[in-house]
C-alpha cells in the first residue's frame, strides 16, 4: 500500500498541477485569447491559431529533464524549433509569398515603390526609441524590425541578432499585423483631409507576362547586390515569384504557395508560440518590446501617409496625384494594409477603389523590409 501511495506521489510530481505557476496560467490565458480573437474576429487566423495553441503547449507546466520541452535538446518540439532558431522557416515562407504575389501593381506604377521605402521608417524609428530606452544595438535592431510588419522577416532577423528576444518580437509582430485595421485607420484619418481622401488615381496600365517575368530577376539582382545580407529573404521571394511568372514551372509555384507555405506557417506559428514559455516571456523587456512594436507600426503608417502627401506637393497634374490613403500600405502586411486603404477609401467614395493602387506600395514594403533587415544584419550581425 505504501508503495502505491509513494508511486502516486511520485507521479503527482510529474503532473502539470504540481508544477504549475501563475505565470504559466497567464500565458495559457493569452494563448486562449489569441485563438478566440482569431476565431471570432477572424484576425490573422492562420497565424494566431497556431501561435495561440503553441503558447498553450509551451506553457504546460512540466517536470524538467523529460526531454519534451522546446528548450530541451533533442526533443520533438526542439527539433521543430530549429527552423525558427536557425532561420530556415522565414526564407521558405518568403518563397511561398513570392509564388503568390502579383507584382503587376508595382510594375504598372513604379513611382509607388518609394512609399514602400518611406514606411520602413517605422523600423528605424523603433530602433532609435529602443536605443533610447537602453537596449543594445543588436536588440534594438531586432525590435525595430517589428515596424516592417513582416512576421517572417522579424523572426529571421531576431534569430540572428537577439535570439533571447525572438519570442516576444515574433508574437508582437504577428499581433500587430492582426491589428493593422485597428491601428492604421485612425492615423490615416487624422493625417488626411476629405479632399485628399477623395483623390481618384488613374487606372493602372496593363502589365505583360514578359514584364512580370523580368521583374523578379531585375529586382533580385538590384537588391541583392546592394544588400547581400538580405539574400535568404530576397532570393527566396524573387525565386518564388519567378516560379509563378515564368509560366513553365506551374507545379513548383503551386507547391510553394500552397502545401509548402501551409506546412511552414503551421510549424513556425506553433513553435514560436511554444517558445513563449512564461519564465522567458513574462518579463519587463517583453512589455517594452510590445510598446515599441506598437509605436513602430504608428511611425510606419504616419511616415507612409505623410510621404504621399509630400509627393503630391510636387505633382502639378491633379489627375496624377496619389491618394494618401494608400500611404499606410507601405508596410509589408500583405494584403491587410492594402485592404485597409480600400475600406477607408470607400467610406468616403464608394466608387473609389484603392486596393489595386495600394498593392503597389504593399509589395514594395515586402522588398523594403527585407532590404532593411539585410542592412541591420550587416551592421549588427
Amino acid at each position, binding site marked *: 500500500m505504501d508503495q502505491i501511495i509513494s508511486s502516486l506521489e511520485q507521479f503527482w510530481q510529474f503532473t502539470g498541477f504540481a508544477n504549475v505557476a501563475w505565470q504559466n496560467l497567464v500565458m495559457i490565458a493569452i494563448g486562449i485569447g489569441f485563438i478566440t480573437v482569431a476565431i471570432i474576429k477572424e484576425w490573422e487566423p492562420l497565424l494566431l491559431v497556431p501561435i495561440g495553441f503553441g503558447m498553450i503547449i509551451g506553457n504546460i507546466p512540466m517536470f524538467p529533464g523529460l526531454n519534451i520541452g522546446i528548450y530541451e535538446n533533442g526533443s520533438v518540439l526542439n527539433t521543430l524549433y530549429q527552423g525558427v532558431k536557425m532561420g530556415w522557416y522565414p526564407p521558405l515562407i518568403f518563397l511561398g509569398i513570392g509564388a503568390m504575389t502579383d507584382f503587376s501593381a508595382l510594375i504598372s506604377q513604379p513611382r509607388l*515603390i518609394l512609399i514602400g521605402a518611406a514606411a520602413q521608417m517605422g523600423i528605424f524609428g523603433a530602433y532609435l526609441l529602443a536605443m533610447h530606452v537602453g537596449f543594445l544595438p543588436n536588440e534594438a535592431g531586432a525590435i525595430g524590425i517589428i515596424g516592417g510588419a513582416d512576421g517572417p522577416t522579424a523572426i529571421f532577423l531576431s534569430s540572428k541578432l537577439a535570439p533571447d528576444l525572438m519570442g516576444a518580437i515574433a508574437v508582437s509582430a504577428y499581433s500587430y499585423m492582426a491589428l493593422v485595421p485597428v491601428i492604421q485607420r485612425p492615423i490615416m484619418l487624422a493625417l488626411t483631409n476629405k479632399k485628399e481622401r477623395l483623390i481618384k488615381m488613374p487606372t493602372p496600365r*496593363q502589365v505583360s507576362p514578359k514584364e512580370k517575368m523580368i521583374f523578379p530577376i531585375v529586382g533580385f539582382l538590384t537588391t541583392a547586390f546592394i544588400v547581400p545580407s538580405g539574400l535568404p529573404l530576397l532570393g527566396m521571394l524573387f525565386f518564388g515569384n519567378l516560379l509563378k511568372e515564368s509560366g513553365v514551372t506551374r507545379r513548383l509555384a503551386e507547391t510553394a504557395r500552397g502545401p509548402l507555405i501551409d506546412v511552414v506557417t503551421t510549424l513556425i506559428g506553433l513553435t514560436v508560440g511554444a517558445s513563449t514559455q512564461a519564465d522567458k516571456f513574462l518579463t519587463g523587456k517583453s512589455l517594452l518590446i510590445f510598446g515599441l512594436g506598437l509605436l513602430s507600426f504608428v511611425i510606419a503608417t504616419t511616415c507612409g501617409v505623410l510621404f504621399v502627401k509630400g509627393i503630391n506637393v510636387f505633382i502639378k497634374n491633379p489627375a496624377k496625384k496619389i491618394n494618401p490613403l494608400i500611404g499606410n500600405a507601405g508596410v509589408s502586411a500583405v494584403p491587410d494594409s492594402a485592404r485597409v486603404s480600400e475600406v477607408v477609401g470607400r467610406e468616403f467614395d464608394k466608387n473609389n477603389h484603392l486596393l489595386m493602387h495600394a498593392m503597389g506600395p504593399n509589395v514594395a514594403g515586402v522588398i523594403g523590409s527585407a532590404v532593411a533587415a539585410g542592412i541591420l544584419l550587416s*551592421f549588427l550581425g
Partner: protein
Amino acid sequence: MMKKRILIISLLACLCGLGAKAQNVSDLIISEALAVPDSTGILDDYGARNGWIEILNTSQGTVTIGGCFLTDDKSNLKKSLIPKSDSRTQILPRQVMLFYASGNGAQGTFYTDFKVQKGSTVYLVSNDGRTIIDSLLVPANLPDGMSVAKFPVDAKQIKHATSAEPCVPTPRILNDSVDSKTKAQQMAEKDPHGFILTIVSVSVVFLSLAILWFLFTSLFKDKSKQTKKEAAPKKKASSKDAPMDDATALAIALALEMEQGGDDIAAIAMALHLHLTQSVHDAESFVVTFQQGNSSAWRNKQLNFRQLPR
C-alpha cells in the same frame, strides 16, 4: 539537343566544383608558429615545452585537416602526416588548431615529426602530398619565446600577411581577436544613440527602391505604350453592344454553374466584366480553365499499373 544537355551538365559540374572548393583544405593557412619557447611557453600533454604551429581555417565552413601534411623540408612534403581517422582534426569556421613541433609524431595526433627551426620555412601540404597550401617563414633572428604570425589584411579576413615584427605568442587564439568586439558592441561605441545607423540605413533602403523605380520606369517604358495601343482596339471590340463570343459565353455559363459560392461567382463575373469592357486586367501567364475532378497520374490507380508488353 545533346550538345545543349552536355553544356548544361558541364556548367552544373563546374558550379558544383566551385562550391566544393569553397570549403576545403585550401582555406587553411599557417597563422602562427613558434620555434623556441621560453619559460612562459605552453606545456604540451607530456608536460614539455615545444615549438608549435597554429593552423587557421579562414572559411565559414568546417574543414577537416586530417590527411594533410606538415613539413619544414620542401623536398620532403610528406614529412609529418596529420592522422586522417581522428575526428578531432575538424577545424570549425574561423577557428584555429595547434600542433606541437616535438619532433616525435608518434606522441599523438597533434604532434609533428620535426621541430620548428629558426630560419626554416614551415609548409602545410594538401592531402594529395604534392600541393603546398600555405607556408610560413620563421625568421632566423626570431627571439626565443616570440612567435611569427599572420594577420588579416582585408575586411573579409580571408587574405593574411606575415607580421614584420616578432609577436607575443597567442596559441589557440585568433591573432586578431585579442581586442575584438562584436559588431553590436562596436556600434554601441561609435553610434550610441543610433542616429548614424538610422540615416545610413534609411538612405540605403530608399536608394535600393529608387534604383528599382528607375529601372522599371526605363525598362518598361516602351512596353506600356505598346500595351496601351494593343488595348485600344480590344476595348472597341468588346463594348457592351458587341455580341459576346459563343465560347466565352459558354465558359462563363459553365464556370458559374460549377461554382457554388456566391463570392466566387461575383469574382468571376467582375473579372470577366473588367477584362471584356475596360481591359484593366493583366495579360495572365496562364490560360484559366475550369476543370471537373482532379485526376493525375499520382491519384489514378489505373495509370500506375505496370504496362506489360504483349
